[in-house]
């Protein structure tokens, strides 16, 4: 009981600190890094729902991200619908897309969801370039500037974006926390550990995998809209590029499975990544990405429980 209260208090203090932190930060670069930490943490957490909890890694979360970003922008540019509404339209479309991709693949054992999402990332970037009348083609879609317009998801300073992404992050953490404690979460755990055993005790394997995919797609699309509103621009490489698909997996693998893995992974990687881009820029950005690829390979080989797993092991050996 005391432990639970202590944990709760720690959480409140941590959250309060995160809320007041930007008041002491005037440097927009640091603000930008803070935003990106929660951006990446949220992205990895959303990926985890299907990639980790349902045990079906996706190699195409860019699909859901891109659907989110493009839907809200196309609705805003062509019909004047506020991105706040478009965001949820995009999220529902992404959930439907996730169901459609999960339907043929979840009945078959093996990483078929990974294959089909990879194939469809390539397909969507083709289609979005080809149908340029609607999507702006290869030149992309700039989100029209409306000044400081909170009802249109546009702000002049970075501060509101920080609070929005922090709120996003809290929501997804709460959803995953509840998921871990729910029947649904235990079903997913059972499926991941042993599909046959889960099915034999009456867990509807196919249905729960689909639900996880839809949930993951939904939350990823919300982030797509956030990103597009923050950078005010989206184009096929931004939306459907390999880097976009690789981001959540990298953070998730680095941090490790579980509730806190994404935040730990993002808190470590984001400052490194942004510094590489800032100090080396264009040409050498690929050096960083090359190393990230290597990091993922090495972690899967030698440290499969990620940084959180290592910390946990150190902590337990320290106590005993």
């Amino acid at each position, binding site marked *: 009981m005391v432990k639970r209260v202590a944990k709760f208090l720690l959480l409140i203090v941590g959250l309060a600190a995160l809320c007041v932190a930007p008041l002491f930060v005037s440097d927009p670069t640091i603000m930008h890094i803070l935003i990106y930490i929660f951006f990446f943490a949220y992205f990895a957490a959303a990926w985890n729902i299907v990639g980790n909890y349902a*045990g*079906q*890694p996706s*190699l195409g979360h860019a699909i859901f991200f891109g659907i989110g970003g493009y839907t809200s922008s196309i609705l805003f540019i062509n019909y004047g619908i506020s991105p706040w509404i478009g965001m949820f339209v995009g999220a529902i479309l992404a959930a439907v897309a996730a169901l459609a991709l999960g339907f*043929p*693949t979840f*009945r*078959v054992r*093996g*990483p*078929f969801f*990974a*294959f*089909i999402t*990879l*194939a*469809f990332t*390539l*397909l969507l970037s*083709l*289609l979005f*370039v*080809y149908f340029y009348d609607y999507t702006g083609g290869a030149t992309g879609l700039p989100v029209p500037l409306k000044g400081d317009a909170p009802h249109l998801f546009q702000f002049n300073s970075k501060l509101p974006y920080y609070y929005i992404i922090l709120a996003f992050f809290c929501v997804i953490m709460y959803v995953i926390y509840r998921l871990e404690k729910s029947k649904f979460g235990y079903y997913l755990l059972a499926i991941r550990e042993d599909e046959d055993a889960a099915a034999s005790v009456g867990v509807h394997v196919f249905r729960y995998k689909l639900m996880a995919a839809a949930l993951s797609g939904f939350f990823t699309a919300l982030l797509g809209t956030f990103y597009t509103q923050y950078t005010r621009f989206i184009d096929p490489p931004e939306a459907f590029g*390999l*880097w976009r698909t*690789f981001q959540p*997996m990298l953070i998730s*693998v680095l941090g490790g499975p579980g509730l806190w893995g994404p935040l730990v992974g993002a808190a470590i990687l984001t400052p490194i990544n942004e510094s590489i881009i800032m100090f080396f820029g264009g*040409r*050498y950005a*690929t*050096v960083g*990405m*090359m190393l*990230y*690829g*290597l*990091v*993922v*390979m090495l972690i*899967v*080989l030698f440290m*499969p429980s990620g940084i959180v797993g290592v910390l946990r092991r150190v902590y337990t050996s320290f106590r005993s």
Partner: protein
Amino acid sequence: MQELLGQIVVQGLMVGGIYALAAAGLTLIAGVMKIINIAHGELMMLAMYTTYFLYTLFGLDPLLSVAVTLPLFFAIGCFLQRFCIERLIKGPPMSVIIFASGLIFFAQNLAATSWTQDFKVLRGYTTTTFELFGLRLTSTRLAILASAVIVTVLLYMLLSKTKVGRAIRATSQNIESAQLMGVNVKLTRVLSFGLGVALAGLAGSLLMTIYYLYPAVGTPFGVVALIVVFLGGAGSIFGALIGGLALGIVEAFTGFYLALELKDIAAYIAFIIILLVRPWGLFGVKE
């Protein structure tokens, strides 16, 4: 019109030959180890760079550079299997796929860092064109098609007639029984993976003669090879040849009648249909 249709079919067969070669390596690995190496296309891309530099630096004919890429990529494949995949297949079920996507990202950015994002072609490399039954053919394209057929036959001979082939088939059917019969399963897996990657190297070298090169060139080819594997059935060598050629022809027609940019759509639609109807492939057998 008939000549045009013939030309489209010929065009499709050439690209299909590349698909078949790429898929042959992938299906061999899939049959023996029940894993799909999604970084297959990136290995092809690295072979393309190897061929490109052998040509530009030493003037080596791309068709002859196969003599380098085959052994080189066989070695790379053996290394990957011995020191990485072997560890991973004992671990959590999805670790191979995550490892392979790390490899994709590593390889693409390695290429982009070392050799920039610029498009590269074999400058000054000419092929002989000749006519046969009113169809225009080039020597490189014929070489691709011929190698696809020859490789398939050789691979079939290797699997059905030799001792190594028998060990590979035994390992793919039942690991425990194979071990009991005295098959060195670990070595067999290393050899099969090496062979599969060597075929990616071969496909890459041949692709360089008809295609342009950039760091992300491999991904679509890797994905199409994966689709061909499911079309032909995992482990089916002839399935890969027929599936690859068929997909090549379908793509050529889609490209001609619909739009060149959308030619890949045929492959993706085929993929969904296979998954829905027969996930273990049209020619393969259900496990």
